[in-house]
């Protein structure tokens, strides 16, 4: 046991000596939380709008003012024709075009029905839909304002919507659990696969294997410091989420941390498996990056909803560990759920852990022989 701790200490010295990697290991979770918190948002303000005002009368001016007064739209161009509007689209100046017809006020006051055309640059489909919907809302409120409409008509059904778990619709409630899952997976798996691949590449692995320490303990000794580091990273994200973005932990903290550890072991096992396959650091790095980073980001349900994916991808997402861990985090942190609610994802993660470890162990033996 003493030799084992000596070995762990050696690894810790290795890590501490490389200041830059250490800085990145701790800087990364902080940078990610800040980026997600402040920049990756689907809310919009100051969306660029180009207005083709063919009417150019008082009513159309009032309308433009109404549209831009909300702060969500910013008028960037006043093209004369639809062709000119297209030019602003192509140069990426405007995302939404509003065409006001020449007879706008006549249509509105005399015919009682005017038409406004909305043209969206739909290269970004979701953004286009959001902008069109919001412009529609603004047009409706303009119409009401002009008509001084009375409130609710009789025989109407009101819809009362209650947003559970996240009444303010904070984006942070979604991205903090996601970031923890991403960070743990990347740092833990990548670091583990790298450190073992490095010994192999430099030829020092054989040296270690002939030492009196059993191979099992060597591997354990190599991964322990990284496990601790990743765990600290996870806690940093939780703490930042709590203090900067008010993301609560409504359930039991020990339960959350315990399951965090379980997920961390799964990531470690993945890293081990990759390292038994990879002959050098470059291969190890590329394999972990390409097989772990993008799938964890895109298939775990963190950035994109899983139920909307094609059926095959829904099946693939079932083998992404991050998916289950995010479920656990959401349940414990936001829904204040107890053991029963997280039993299933916990079971799945445990099975994954066992399978991955077995595969890594089998590979390791083959390599050694």
């Amino acid at each position, binding site marked *: 046991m003493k030799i084992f701790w000596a070995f762990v200490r050696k690894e810790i010295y290795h890590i501490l000596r490389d200041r830059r990697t250490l800085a990145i290991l701790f800087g990364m979770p902080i940078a990610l939380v800040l980026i997600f918190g402040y920049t990756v948002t689907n809310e919009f303000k100051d969306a660029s709008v180009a207005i083709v005002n063919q009417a150019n009368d008082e009513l159309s001016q009032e309308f433009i003012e109404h549209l831009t007064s909300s702060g969500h739209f910013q008028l960037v161009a006043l093209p004369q024709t639809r062709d000119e509007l297209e030019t602003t689209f192509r140069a*990426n100046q405007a995302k939404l075009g509003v065409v006001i017809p020449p007879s706008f006020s006549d249509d509105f006051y005399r015919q009682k029905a005017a038409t406004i055309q909305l043209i969206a640059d*739909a290269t970004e489909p979701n953004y286009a839909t959001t902008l069109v919907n919001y412009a529609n809302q603004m047009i409706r409120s303009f119409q009401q304002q002009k008509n001084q409409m009375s409130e609710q008509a*009789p025989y*109407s059904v009101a819809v009362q919507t209650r947003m*559970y*778990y996240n009444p303010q619709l904070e984006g942070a409630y979604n991205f903090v659990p996601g970031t923890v899952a991403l960070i743990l997976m990347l740092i833990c798996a990548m670091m583990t696969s790298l450190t073992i691949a490095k010994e192999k590449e430099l030829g020092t692995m054989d040296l270690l294997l002939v030492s009196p320490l059993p191979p099992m303990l060597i591997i354990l000794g190599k991964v322990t410091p990284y496990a601790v580091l990743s765990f600290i990273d996870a806690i940093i994200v939780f703490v930042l989420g709590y203090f900067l973005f008010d993301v609560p932990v409504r359930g039991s903290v020990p339960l959350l941390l315990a399951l965090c550890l379980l997920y961390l072991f799964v990531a470690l096992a993945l890293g081990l498996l990759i390292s038994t396959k990879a002959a050098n650091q*470059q291969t190890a790095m590329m394999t972990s990056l390409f097989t772990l980073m993008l799938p964890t980001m895109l298939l775990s349900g963190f950035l994109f909803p899983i139920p909307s994916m094609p059926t095959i991808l829904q099946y693939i997402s079932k083998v992404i560990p991050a998916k289950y861990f995010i479920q656990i985090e959401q349940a414990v942190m936001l829904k204040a759920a107890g053991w029963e609610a997280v039993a299933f994802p916990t079971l799945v993660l445990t099975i994954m852990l066992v399978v991955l470890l077995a595969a890594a162990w089998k590979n390791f033996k083959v390599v050694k022989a």
Partner: protein
Amino acid sequence: MRRLAYIIQKEFIQVFRNKAMLPIMTIVPIVQLIVLSYAASNEVTNVRLAIVNQDQSAASRLLIQKVEAADRFILMDFPLSVEEGDELLQRGEVGIVLVIPAQFERTFYREKRGEIQLLVNAIDGQQATVGSGYLSSIIQSFNQEMRAELRLVPMQSNQAQILTTSSNWYNPDLNFKYFMAPGILGELVTILVMLLTAMNVVREREIGTIEQINVTPIKKWQFILGKMVPFLIIGLVLLTVGLTAAKLIFNIPIRGSLVVVFAFCILNLMAVLGLGLFISNLSDTQQQAMFTTFFFVIIFILMSGLFTPIESMPKWAQYLTIPNPIAHFVSVMRSVLLKGSTFQDVIYHFRMTGIMAILFNILAIWSYRKVA
């Protein structure tokens, strides 16, 4: 010139010797391109729904019928009480619970009003809003049908109306693959070549082979150029294959000039490669190089406008996208391929990327020290 050719030849031999890397450089990115383009969609479909029907009237049955007919929702369960509905939400089995209160029909006809409750799992705010929005519009149309049955005289209107028509240019079907595929392709190529170059020089230093190059009469710029050309070619090949795959599989439109696309790709790859070599020169170990690169790449990706529009970022963050090669890449690919933008339209991105390419490569040449 011969020296340059030799070092390029040497790099190619080394790249192709590592058999484990070949599939990672060729097949894996293409598979990812295809799979991830399918995954990356913000469309909200297949929302799982439970209905608590406490009314059991003709009206409530009509509403349920209408919801069942909508293909965006999957009706999972009919819990008997609101508490049971809460339970389903808690366990994550459904996303929305629709509650039709007791006496719904009676109050509607007697008191001329009605109320329906939606309980929504709002952890993902955007999905919650969109999903409940769809449901609200179904309820509105149900409401209109009920009013039509009453044969209410339409509210006499001397009220003027504004009608809107809306059209989606460049992507009328709102196809997410058109939007994601070019961006993901750019992202994959950038990650690949940046990592390959970042690990390259430092690897020679770690193994010690750099000494052998240092004692040759090779010039600094020749060394950097020699390291760059092979990876530039690999990047371009991958791009070509990726674009072809995207065209064949997703049928993404190519409205603009491919010359502009490729010219920009070369410039962009040069910038990325320069940055990679610069990092490599400054690093002591491969591990350091990788982590530095990885740190940059993940920030580049998240702030590239690939997933969320750059326009919605705060101003300071928008400025941070200027030195981000992936942001320019995504923007140019989308503009030229989907909108048919011309060179003039995207000249800003050419300028910025050009400045980056020059700057990063000067740094790379400067930071390469022949004395180890």
